[in-house]
Protein backbone atom coordinates (compact mmCIF):
# COMPACT_ATOMS: atom_id res chain seq x y z
CA UNK A 1 0.00 0.00 0.00
CA UNK A 2 2.75 2.36 0.97
CA UNK A 3 4.54 1.74 -2.30
CA UNK A 4 1.43 2.42 -4.30
CA UNK A 5 0.89 5.73 -2.53
CA UNK A 6 4.42 6.74 -3.41
CA UNK A 7 3.75 5.95 -7.07
CA UNK A 8 0.69 8.14 -7.14
CA UNK A 9 2.50 11.00 -5.49
CA UNK A 10 5.29 10.62 -8.01
CA UNK A 11 2.89 10.86 -10.94
CA UNK A 12 1.29 13.91 -9.45
CA UNK A 13 4.68 15.43 -8.85
CA UNK A 14 5.58 14.83 -12.46
CA UNK A 15 2.36 16.09 -14.04
CA UNK A 16 1.97 19.28 -12.05
CA UNK A 17 4.96 21.15 -13.47
CA UNK A 18 4.09 20.01 -16.99
CA UNK A 19 0.55 21.33 -16.65
CA UNK A 20 1.84 24.59 -15.25
CA UNK A 21 4.27 24.97 -18.13
CA UNK A 22 1.57 24.12 -20.68
CA UNK A 23 -0.75 26.62 -19.05
CA UNK A 24 1.91 29.30 -19.14
CA UNK A 25 2.66 28.53 -22.78
CA UNK A 26 -1.03 28.71 -23.71
CA UNK A 27 -1.41 31.96 -21.79
CA UNK A 28 1.64 33.38 -23.57
CA UNK A 29 0.25 32.36 -26.96
CA UNK A 30 -3.07 33.96 -26.13
CA UNK A 31 -1.37 37.12 -24.90
CA UNK A 32 0.55 37.37 -28.18
CA UNK A 33 -2.68 37.02 -30.15
CA UNK A 34 -4.39 39.57 -27.93
CA UNK A 35 -1.57 42.05 -28.47
CA UNK A 36 -2.20 41.62 -32.16
CA UNK A 37 -5.98 42.03 -31.78
CA UNK A 38 -5.43 45.15 -29.68
CA UNK A 39 -4.20 46.90 -32.82
CA UNK A 40 -7.41 46.15 -34.71
CA UNK A 41 -9.54 49.17 -35.46
CA UNK A 42 -11.90 50.00 -32.62
CA UNK A 43 -10.44 47.63 -30.02
CA UNK A 44 -10.03 49.42 -26.70
CA UNK A 45 -8.38 46.68 -24.68
CA UNK A 46 -8.52 43.22 -23.19
CA UNK A 47 -8.52 41.27 -19.95
CA UNK A 48 -6.89 37.86 -19.71
CA UNK A 49 -6.89 35.86 -16.50
CA UNK A 50 -6.29 32.34 -15.33
CA UNK A 51 -5.78 30.67 -11.98
CA UNK A 52 -2.26 32.04 -11.58
CA UNK A 53 -2.12 35.39 -13.35
CA UNK A 54 -4.05 38.23 -14.96
CA UNK A 55 -3.20 40.71 -17.70
CA UNK A 56 -5.23 43.84 -18.25
CA UNK A 57 -4.55 46.21 -21.06
CA UNK A 58 -7.13 48.97 -21.48
CA UNK A 59 -6.84 52.34 -23.17
CA UNK A 60 -8.87 53.91 -20.35
CA UNK A 61 -7.42 52.68 -17.05
CA UNK A 62 -10.22 54.32 -15.02
CA UNK A 63 -12.53 51.58 -16.25
CA UNK A 64 -10.40 48.65 -15.15
CA UNK A 65 -12.56 47.68 -12.16
CA UNK A 66 -15.90 47.99 -13.95
CA UNK A 67 -14.65 46.12 -16.98
CA UNK A 68 -13.11 43.40 -14.80
CA UNK A 69 -16.45 42.88 -13.03
CA UNK A 70 -18.40 42.78 -16.32
CA UNK A 71 -15.84 40.37 -17.78
CA UNK A 72 -16.03 38.02 -14.83
CA UNK A 73 -19.84 38.29 -14.56
CA UNK A 74 -20.38 37.57 -18.23
CA UNK A 75 -18.23 34.43 -18.20
CA UNK A 76 -19.92 33.17 -15.02
CA UNK A 77 -23.38 34.03 -16.42
CA UNK A 78 -22.56 32.19 -19.63
CA UNK A 79 -21.67 29.01 -17.77
CA UNK A 80 -24.64 29.21 -15.38
CA UNK A 81 -27.20 29.86 -18.13
CA UNK A 82 -25.77 27.19 -20.45
CA UNK A 83 -26.23 24.70 -17.61
CA UNK A 84 -29.75 25.94 -16.80
CA UNK A 85 -30.98 25.45 -20.36
CA UNK A 86 -28.76 22.45 -21.11
CA UNK A 87 -26.99 24.24 -23.94
CA UNK A 88 -23.65 22.45 -23.65
CA UNK A 89 -20.32 24.20 -23.50
CA UNK A 90 -20.27 28.00 -23.65
CA UNK A 91 -18.48 29.30 -26.74
CA UNK A 92 -18.65 33.02 -26.13
CA UNK A 93 -20.67 35.81 -24.55
CA UNK A 94 -21.12 39.16 -26.28
CA UNK A 95 -22.42 42.15 -24.35
CA UNK A 96 -23.40 45.07 -26.52
CA UNK A 97 -23.49 48.47 -24.84
CA UNK A 98 -24.47 51.79 -26.34
CA UNK A 99 -20.82 52.82 -26.66
CA UNK A 100 -18.72 49.72 -26.12
CA UNK A 101 -19.20 46.04 -26.73
CA UNK A 102 -17.43 43.18 -25.03
CA UNK A 103 -16.65 39.69 -26.23
CA UNK A 104 -15.84 37.07 -23.59
CA UNK A 105 -14.81 33.47 -23.94
CA UNK A 106 -12.71 30.77 -22.33
CA UNK A 107 -9.74 28.90 -23.73
CA UNK A 108 -8.86 26.04 -21.41
CA UNK A 109 -8.22 27.75 -18.06
CA UNK A 110 -7.88 31.19 -19.58
CA UNK A 111 -10.77 33.62 -19.39
CA UNK A 112 -10.58 36.34 -22.00
CA UNK A 113 -12.61 39.50 -22.58
CA UNK A 114 -12.04 41.93 -25.40
CA UNK A 115 -13.52 45.41 -25.34
CA UNK A 116 -14.18 47.36 -28.49
CA UNK A 117 -16.11 50.30 -29.88
CA UNK A 118 -19.68 49.55 -30.82
CA UNK A 119 -18.90 49.67 -34.54
CA UNK A 120 -15.76 47.55 -34.44
CA UNK A 121 -15.74 44.35 -36.48
CA UNK A 122 -16.31 41.70 -33.81
CA UNK A 123 -16.62 38.93 -36.42
CA UNK A 124 -13.03 39.51 -37.49
CA UNK A 125 -11.92 39.26 -33.87
CA UNK A 126 -13.98 36.11 -33.30
CA UNK A 127 -12.38 34.48 -36.35
CA UNK A 128 -8.94 35.24 -35.00
CA UNK A 129 -9.86 33.94 -31.57
CA UNK A 130 -11.30 30.71 -32.93
CA UNK A 131 -7.84 29.85 -34.18
CA UNK A 132 -6.53 29.79 -30.59
Amino acid at each position, binding site marked *: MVKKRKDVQHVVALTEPITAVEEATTANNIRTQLEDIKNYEGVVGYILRNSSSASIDLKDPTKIIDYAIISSSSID*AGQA*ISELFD*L*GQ*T*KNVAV*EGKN*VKMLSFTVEENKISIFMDKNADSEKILKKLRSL
Partner: protein
Amino acid sequence: MDNEIYSFALRTTLNEIQNLCPDIKNSFIFKEDGEIVAGDENTPEKTIVRVIDSFDGILEKAEALGGVEGITLESSKGRVNVCRMNDFYLVTVTMANADKNYVNTITRVLFPTVLKLVEKINSAPFKNESREPEPRPEIHIPEAMAKPAEEMPIEEPRPERPTRTLEPETKPKLTLPEPQINQLIVENIGGLLVPSDTVRIDNETLLHWQELYEDRKIEEAEIETFGGQSTRVKIKPIKDSKFEGKGIVQMPEKIQNALEIRKGELVRVKPVIE
Protein backbone atom coordinates in the same frame (compact mmCIF):
# COMPACT_ATOMS: atom_id res chain seq x y z
CA MET B 1 -55.18 48.05 -18.70
CA ASP B 2 -53.82 46.81 -15.41
CA ASN B 3 -50.56 44.95 -14.99
CA GLU B 4 -52.24 41.56 -14.94
CA ILE B 5 -53.87 42.01 -18.33
CA TYR B 6 -50.72 43.60 -19.71
CA SER B 7 -48.69 40.64 -18.49
CA PHE B 8 -51.28 38.21 -19.86
CA ALA B 9 -51.13 39.89 -23.28
CA LEU B 10 -47.34 39.65 -23.34
CA ARG B 11 -47.34 36.04 -22.10
CA THR B 12 -49.79 35.09 -24.84
CA THR B 13 -47.58 36.89 -27.35
CA LEU B 14 -44.53 34.94 -26.18
CA ASN B 15 -46.41 31.65 -26.55
CA GLU B 16 -47.67 32.59 -30.00
CA ILE B 17 -44.20 33.68 -31.07
CA GLN B 18 -42.95 30.23 -30.08
CA ASN B 19 -45.73 28.63 -32.12
CA LEU B 20 -44.66 30.76 -35.07
CA CYS B 21 -40.99 30.03 -34.54
CA PRO B 22 -40.47 26.65 -32.83
CA ASP B 23 -36.71 27.29 -32.84
CA ILE B 24 -37.33 29.52 -29.84
CA LYS B 25 -37.35 27.14 -26.89
CA ASN B 26 -37.80 29.58 -24.03
CA SER B 27 -38.63 33.24 -23.81
CA PHE B 28 -39.45 35.72 -21.10
CA ILE B 29 -39.39 39.42 -20.33
CA PHE B 30 -38.03 41.19 -17.30
CA LYS B 31 -37.52 44.76 -16.21
CA GLU B 32 -34.21 46.42 -15.41
CA ASP B 33 -34.91 46.12 -11.68
CA GLY B 34 -35.26 42.34 -12.07
CA GLU B 35 -39.05 42.18 -11.97
CA ILE B 36 -40.46 39.41 -14.18
CA VAL B 37 -43.02 40.85 -16.59
CA ALA B 38 -44.04 37.71 -18.46
CA GLY B 39 -42.71 34.28 -19.29
CA ASP B 40 -43.76 31.57 -21.73
CA GLU B 41 -45.40 28.41 -20.53
CA ASN B 42 -42.22 26.31 -20.97
CA THR B 43 -40.04 28.30 -18.61
CA PRO B 44 -40.53 27.86 -14.86
CA GLU B 45 -40.37 31.02 -12.78
CA LYS B 46 -37.51 29.55 -10.76
CA THR B 47 -35.40 29.27 -13.93
CA ILE B 48 -36.25 32.84 -14.92
CA VAL B 49 -35.18 34.10 -11.50
CA ARG B 50 -31.86 32.28 -11.78
CA VAL B 51 -31.20 33.68 -15.24
CA ILE B 52 -31.96 37.22 -14.07
CA ASP B 53 -29.63 36.68 -11.12
CA SER B 54 -26.90 35.56 -13.49
CA PHE B 55 -27.22 38.74 -15.52
CA ASP B 56 -27.20 40.89 -12.42
CA GLY B 57 -23.45 41.47 -12.39
CA ILE B 58 -23.44 42.58 -16.03
CA LEU B 59 -26.46 44.86 -15.70
CA GLU B 60 -25.11 46.45 -12.51
CA LYS B 61 -21.95 47.59 -14.25
CA ALA B 62 -23.63 48.25 -17.59
CA GLU B 63 -23.02 51.97 -17.33
CA ALA B 64 -19.36 51.36 -18.05
CA LEU B 65 -20.42 50.19 -21.52
CA GLY B 66 -22.94 53.01 -21.89
CA GLY B 67 -25.87 50.81 -20.83
CA VAL B 68 -26.60 47.31 -22.10
CA GLU B 69 -28.52 47.02 -25.38
CA GLY B 70 -28.11 43.31 -25.86
CA ILE B 71 -26.37 40.18 -24.65
CA THR B 72 -25.71 37.10 -26.74
CA LEU B 73 -24.52 33.83 -25.33
CA GLU B 74 -23.41 31.17 -27.79
CA SER B 75 -23.07 27.60 -26.64
CA SER B 76 -22.41 24.34 -28.43
CA LYS B 77 -26.09 23.35 -28.38
CA GLY B 78 -27.86 26.69 -28.46
CA ARG B 79 -27.98 30.40 -28.07
CA VAL B 80 -29.40 32.85 -25.55
CA ASN B 81 -30.25 36.33 -26.68
CA VAL B 82 -31.15 39.24 -24.45
CA CYS B 83 -32.56 42.23 -26.26
CA ARG B 84 -33.38 45.52 -24.61
CA MET B 85 -36.65 47.18 -25.60
CA ASN B 86 -37.46 50.40 -23.80
CA ASP B 87 -37.55 49.39 -20.15
CA PHE B 88 -37.77 45.66 -20.85
CA TYR B 89 -35.30 42.90 -21.56
CA LEU B 90 -36.58 40.13 -23.81
CA VAL B 91 -34.72 36.84 -23.34
CA THR B 92 -34.96 34.13 -25.97
CA VAL B 93 -33.31 30.71 -25.95
CA THR B 94 -32.87 29.04 -29.32
CA MET B 95 -31.31 25.84 -30.54
CA ALA B 96 -27.93 25.90 -32.29
CA ASN B 97 -29.43 25.26 -35.73
CA ALA B 98 -32.06 28.01 -35.45
CA ASP B 99 -32.37 30.52 -38.28
CA LYS B 100 -30.70 33.56 -36.70
CA ASN B 101 -32.25 36.06 -39.12
CA TYR B 102 -35.74 34.76 -38.62
CA VAL B 103 -35.40 34.74 -34.85
CA ASN B 104 -33.96 38.27 -34.98
CA THR B 105 -36.82 39.44 -37.17
CA ILE B 106 -39.23 38.19 -34.58
CA THR B 107 -37.42 39.45 -31.54
CA ARG B 108 -36.23 42.80 -32.86
CA VAL B 109 -39.10 43.73 -35.15
CA LEU B 110 -42.26 41.86 -34.34
CA PHE B 111 -42.00 41.96 -30.58
CA PRO B 112 -41.43 45.73 -30.28
CA THR B 113 -44.42 46.21 -32.56
CA VAL B 114 -46.59 44.11 -30.27
CA LEU B 115 -45.27 46.04 -27.28
CA LYS B 116 -46.17 49.33 -28.95
CA LEU B 117 -49.60 48.02 -29.86
CA VAL B 118 -50.26 46.86 -26.32
CA GLU B 119 -49.12 50.23 -25.00
CA LYS B 120 -51.32 52.10 -27.48
CA ILE B 121 -54.32 50.06 -26.51
CA ASN B 122 -53.34 50.51 -22.90
CA SER B 123 -53.51 54.29 -23.24
CA ALA B 124 -56.70 54.39 -25.33
CA PRO B 125 -59.30 53.61 -22.63
CA PHE B 126 -57.92 56.29 -20.35
CA LYS B 127 -58.37 58.93 -23.05
CA ASN B 128 -61.98 57.93 -23.53
CA GLU B 129 -62.64 57.74 -19.85
CA SER B 130 -62.27 61.47 -19.30
CA ARG B 131 -64.82 62.27 -21.97
CA GLU B 132 -67.37 59.55 -21.53
CA PRO B 133 -68.72 58.43 -18.21
CA GLU B 134 -69.82 55.18 -19.80
CA PRO B 135 -68.36 51.86 -18.68
CA ARG B 136 -64.95 51.06 -20.07
CA PRO B 137 -65.00 49.32 -23.41
CA GLU B 138 -63.84 45.72 -23.38
CA ILE B 139 -60.23 45.14 -24.26
CA HIS B 140 -59.83 42.61 -27.00
CA ILE B 141 -56.11 42.06 -26.79
CA PRO B 142 -56.08 38.53 -25.42
CA GLU B 143 -58.29 37.25 -28.24
CA ALA B 144 -56.24 39.04 -30.85
CA MET B 145 -53.06 37.62 -29.36
CA ALA B 146 -54.61 34.16 -29.13
CA LYS B 147 -54.92 34.03 -32.89
CA PRO B 148 -52.14 32.00 -34.46
CA ALA B 149 -49.46 34.53 -35.24
CA GLU B 150 -49.19 33.32 -38.81
CA GLU B 151 -52.67 34.59 -39.42
CA MET B 152 -51.96 38.03 -38.24
CA PRO B 153 -49.93 40.43 -40.26
CA ILE B 154 -50.22 43.17 -37.69
CA GLU B 155 -53.07 45.46 -38.43
CA GLU B 156 -52.54 49.10 -37.73
CA PRO B 157 -54.95 50.30 -35.08
CA ARG B 158 -57.30 52.80 -36.58
CA PRO B 159 -56.65 56.36 -35.42
CA GLU B 160 -59.00 57.42 -32.68
CA ARG B 161 -61.78 59.70 -33.69
CA PRO B 162 -63.16 62.24 -31.29
CA THR B 163 -66.52 61.06 -30.00
CA ARG B 164 -69.31 63.46 -29.20
CA THR B 165 -71.71 61.56 -27.06
CA LEU B 166 -74.44 64.24 -27.06
CA GLU B 167 -74.76 64.50 -30.81
CA PRO B 168 -76.80 61.86 -32.58
CA GLU B 169 -74.61 59.38 -34.35
CA THR B 170 -74.46 59.90 -38.06
CA LYS B 171 -75.38 56.83 -40.00
CA PRO B 172 -72.48 55.45 -41.94
CA LYS B 173 -72.77 56.13 -45.63
CA LEU B 174 -72.90 53.18 -47.97
CA THR B 175 -69.36 53.60 -49.15
CA LEU B 176 -66.43 51.24 -49.44
CA PRO B 177 -64.73 50.28 -46.19
CA GLU B 178 -61.61 52.24 -45.34
CA PRO B 179 -58.54 50.66 -46.92
CA GLN B 180 -57.14 48.11 -44.53
CA ILE B 181 -53.62 48.92 -43.40
CA ASN B 182 -51.23 46.05 -42.79
CA GLN B 183 -47.81 46.28 -41.20
CA LEU B 184 -45.41 44.00 -43.02
CA ILE B 185 -41.72 43.22 -42.75
CA VAL B 186 -39.58 44.05 -45.77
CA GLU B 187 -37.86 41.10 -47.44
CA ASN B 188 -35.56 41.27 -50.45
CA ILE B 189 -36.63 39.93 -53.78
CA GLY B 190 -34.01 38.87 -56.25
CA GLY B 191 -33.74 37.55 -59.78
CA LEU B 192 -33.16 38.84 -63.28
CA LEU B 193 -36.75 39.21 -64.36
CA VAL B 194 -38.06 40.93 -61.26
CA PRO B 195 -40.10 44.00 -62.22
CA SER B 196 -38.80 47.00 -60.31
CA ASP B 197 -42.25 48.48 -59.69
CA THR B 198 -43.89 45.42 -58.14
CA VAL B 199 -43.91 44.02 -54.63
CA ARG B 200 -45.07 40.60 -53.52
CA ILE B 201 -47.51 40.12 -50.65
CA ASP B 202 -49.09 37.09 -48.97
CA ASN B 203 -51.80 35.58 -51.10
CA GLU B 204 -53.93 35.39 -47.96
CA THR B 205 -53.73 39.17 -47.51
CA LEU B 206 -54.58 39.75 -51.17
CA LEU B 207 -57.58 37.43 -50.92
CA HIS B 208 -58.70 39.23 -47.78
CA TRP B 209 -58.53 42.58 -49.57
CA GLN B 210 -60.42 41.10 -52.48
CA GLU B 211 -63.15 39.91 -50.10
CA LEU B 212 -63.42 43.40 -48.62
CA TYR B 213 -63.71 45.12 -51.98
CA GLU B 214 -65.51 42.44 -53.94
CA ASP B 215 -66.31 44.40 -57.07
CA ARG B 216 -62.95 46.15 -57.33
CA LYS B 217 -59.82 44.83 -58.84
CA ILE B 218 -56.89 45.53 -56.55
CA GLU B 219 -53.72 45.81 -58.55
CA GLU B 220 -51.79 48.41 -56.62
CA ALA B 221 -50.94 49.20 -53.02
CA GLU B 222 -49.54 52.17 -51.20
CA ILE B 223 -46.48 51.54 -49.10
CA GLU B 224 -45.63 53.93 -46.32
CA THR B 225 -42.55 53.86 -44.13
CA PHE B 226 -42.40 54.93 -40.51
CA GLY B 227 -40.07 57.69 -41.67
CA GLY B 228 -42.96 59.19 -43.65
CA GLN B 229 -41.90 58.12 -47.18
CA SER B 230 -44.56 56.57 -49.36
CA THR B 231 -44.99 55.20 -52.82
CA ARG B 232 -47.54 53.41 -54.94
CA VAL B 233 -46.55 50.01 -56.35
CA LYS B 234 -48.03 47.11 -58.24
CA ILE B 235 -48.76 43.99 -56.22
CA LYS B 236 -48.51 40.29 -56.85
CA PRO B 237 -48.77 37.25 -54.56
CA ILE B 238 -45.64 35.78 -53.00
CA LYS B 239 -44.34 32.83 -55.00
CA ASP B 240 -41.92 31.34 -52.51
CA SER B 241 -43.88 29.26 -49.99
CA LYS B 242 -41.28 29.79 -47.26
CA PHE B 243 -42.30 33.46 -47.08
CA GLU B 244 -46.02 32.69 -46.97
CA GLY B 245 -47.94 33.62 -43.84
CA LYS B 246 -45.02 35.43 -42.22
CA GLY B 247 -46.25 38.99 -42.57
CA ILE B 248 -43.63 39.77 -45.20
CA VAL B 249 -43.61 42.07 -48.21
CA GLN B 250 -41.01 41.14 -50.83
CA MET B 251 -39.66 44.31 -52.34
CA PRO B 252 -37.13 44.99 -55.13
CA GLU B 253 -34.05 46.97 -54.18
CA LYS B 254 -35.13 49.96 -56.28
CA ILE B 255 -38.29 50.47 -54.21
CA GLN B 256 -36.36 49.92 -50.96
CA ASN B 257 -33.89 52.62 -52.02
CA ALA B 258 -36.68 55.00 -53.00
CA LEU B 259 -38.31 54.53 -49.59
CA GLU B 260 -34.95 54.63 -47.79
CA ILE B 261 -35.57 51.32 -46.06
CA ARG B 262 -34.00 47.90 -46.08
CA LYS B 263 -34.70 44.26 -45.29
CA GLY B 264 -36.16 43.63 -41.84
CA GLU B 265 -37.84 47.02 -41.46
CA LEU B 266 -41.57 47.46 -40.99
CA VAL B 267 -43.77 49.26 -43.50
CA ARG B 268 -47.48 50.02 -43.72
CA VAL B 269 -49.19 48.57 -46.75
CA LYS B 270 -52.72 49.38 -47.87
CA PRO B 271 -54.59 48.54 -51.05
CA VAL B 272 -55.31 51.28 -53.55
CA ILE B 273 -59.05 51.34 -54.22
CA GLU B 274 -60.09 53.35 -57.22
